[in-house]
């Protein structure tokens, strides 16, 4: 398997707060990578760096063999990187369908019928089809999160970054979300997923990284990582009950 994403000595600080501290790691094509870490560890910032909404102070990001460090967010999106926002960012004046169409026409570069078909298919998959004609501004928080996922999928991404999309779901809803993500993954899309709902995360990913104070403190198979005392201490608290 080839490397799709490569971070090299990535560093970003806001004043005294370091959100990325010399991060280096690689993600292979087709992998599903989970990201854990306490609040404020720098997980969302890591996504911002990868998608180009934040510029690193130093270091290098490679995507599909190309150095994309200086690229704009828009260009990275064209190249195949998609994300969902932790705080949903819908186009509130437009309908759900139009939100999806933007991803399909602008990022994936599809036209007419093709774009429409893709949007319908994805909306169906994310169970938002019934709300297709509703203005995105009137969605509930959870529906907005689904819209985030929908839009990301409509860009036909190679690399999909998901930021906390399982929070607030009921058991059944969570299960159906997991199934959706598994489906996306099995179609060949590489996934990086930040999630505090650990059991959901573990049922999908085949590798975990743990971030604390912007530093990578663990990287490997989920099981051993979850059992490592360090993770138990800083993330789950000493006696894990999740």
């Amino acid at each position, binding site marked *: 398997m080839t490397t799709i994403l490569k971070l090299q000595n990535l560093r970003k600080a806001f004043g005294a707060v370091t959100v990325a501290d010399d991060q280096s790691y690689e993600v292979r094509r087709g992998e599903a990578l989970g990201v854990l870490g306490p609040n404020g560890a720098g997980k969302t910032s890591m996504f911002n760096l990868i*998608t*180009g*909404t934040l510029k690193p102070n130093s270091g290098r990001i490679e995507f599909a063999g190309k150095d994309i460090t200086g690229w*704009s*967010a*828009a*260009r990275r*999106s*064209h190249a195949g990187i*998609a*994300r969902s*926002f932790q705080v949903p*960012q*819908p*186009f*509130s*004046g*437009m*309908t759900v*369908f*139009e939100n999806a*169409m*933007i*991803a399909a*026409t*602008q*990022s*994936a*570069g599809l*036209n007419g019928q093709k774009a*429409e*078909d893709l949007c*319908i*298919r994805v909306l*169906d998959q994310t169970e938002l*089809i019934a709300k*297709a*004609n509703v203005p995105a501004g009137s969605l509930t928080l959870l529906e907005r999160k689904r819209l985030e996922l929908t*839009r990301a999928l409509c*860009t036909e991404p190679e690399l999909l970054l998901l930021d906390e999309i399982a929070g607030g779901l009921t058991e059944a809803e969570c299960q159906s979300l997991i199934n959706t993500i598994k489906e996306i993954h099995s179609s060949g899309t590489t996934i990086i997923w930040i999630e505090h709902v650990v059991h959901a995360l573990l049922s999908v990913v085949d590798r975990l990284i743990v971030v604390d104070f912007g530093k990578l403190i663990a990287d490997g198979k989920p099981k051993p990582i979850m059992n490592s005392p360090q993770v138990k201490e800083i993330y789950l608290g000493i006696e894990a009950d999740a």
Partner: protein
Amino acid sequence: MNSQTYAVSRSSRAARVSAIIGTLVLIILVAAPWWAGRADMRLMGELFLYLALASLWNLMAGYAGLVSVGQQAFVGFGGYMLFALTMFAGLHPITAIAAAGLLGALISVPVAVLIFRLRGAYFAIGTWVIAEVFRLGFAQVSALGGGSGSSLPVAIVKSLASKRAMRESISYWLALSAAVLVVASVYFFLRSRKGLALTAIRDNETAADSLGIDIWRTKFVVYVVTSAFTAMIGALIFLQKLRISPDAAFSVNDWTAFVIFIVVIGGIGTIEGPIIGTFVFFLLRETLADLGTVYLIVLGVVAILVMLKAPKGLWGLFRARFDVQIFPLGYRVSKRDPS
């Protein structure tokens, strides 16, 4: 369940009906020289020019989120270019109008580079300052009359057509085609892929950016094209006014405040809004303008009332009641009949 079971449509019955009515109205309007009086034609010409200005401003503010209070910069610039090109370069007025548009696009490039660094209210005020710089700058050009201004030589006006009636018809048709051209361009642009991108930017820049929309370039293109059109309209306006001076050419009230008023009254962010707003504005003006201060006070009160009571404008009020779109831009997803 997939695209077989769902259908996406972009038109409506109302739109098809109004397309037919619109074509008929257009034919009648083109024939105005044969049925309308001179004063009516002049008034309609002025109305069309305001309609064009309003549609352009609406494209910028209502769709691209560029709230400019400095469009008079380009109106005045176009007017001055008409004067300069006809008087000094000897161009035919119609050629000069086209050239004014081109020059308007050119000059808007450095302006855009500068003021696109600003957002929101800062952008609005920045555009105003730019317009002031244009005004004060043209006031320094003594060849064009400096602060005193200049009149368009009669010979140039007559080069449009030697007969007065023909001249008046040409002026009228120019104004009509400007309005039709602008409204049609705005409509087809907004239905295009780029148009969708524009609306997305207005709603949420962070998301637009991460979905592959080059925000700066999209806005830049809209700004430059709008400026070019606005400059052309400006040239047309001052071909009618015959006289230009910095204060008249770069009047914030005449070319921007009234235009904003029109768009907001009609309904911002819709294509229909500026059309309705223009009619309302002219109705008010024609009936009340002789009242002087009272007219202006009424105008102020109407602006405030509409903004408070119907922030989406008259067209918004109408749409809230009847779900009609004459210029459909959006998409409707519907379940296909199983049959």
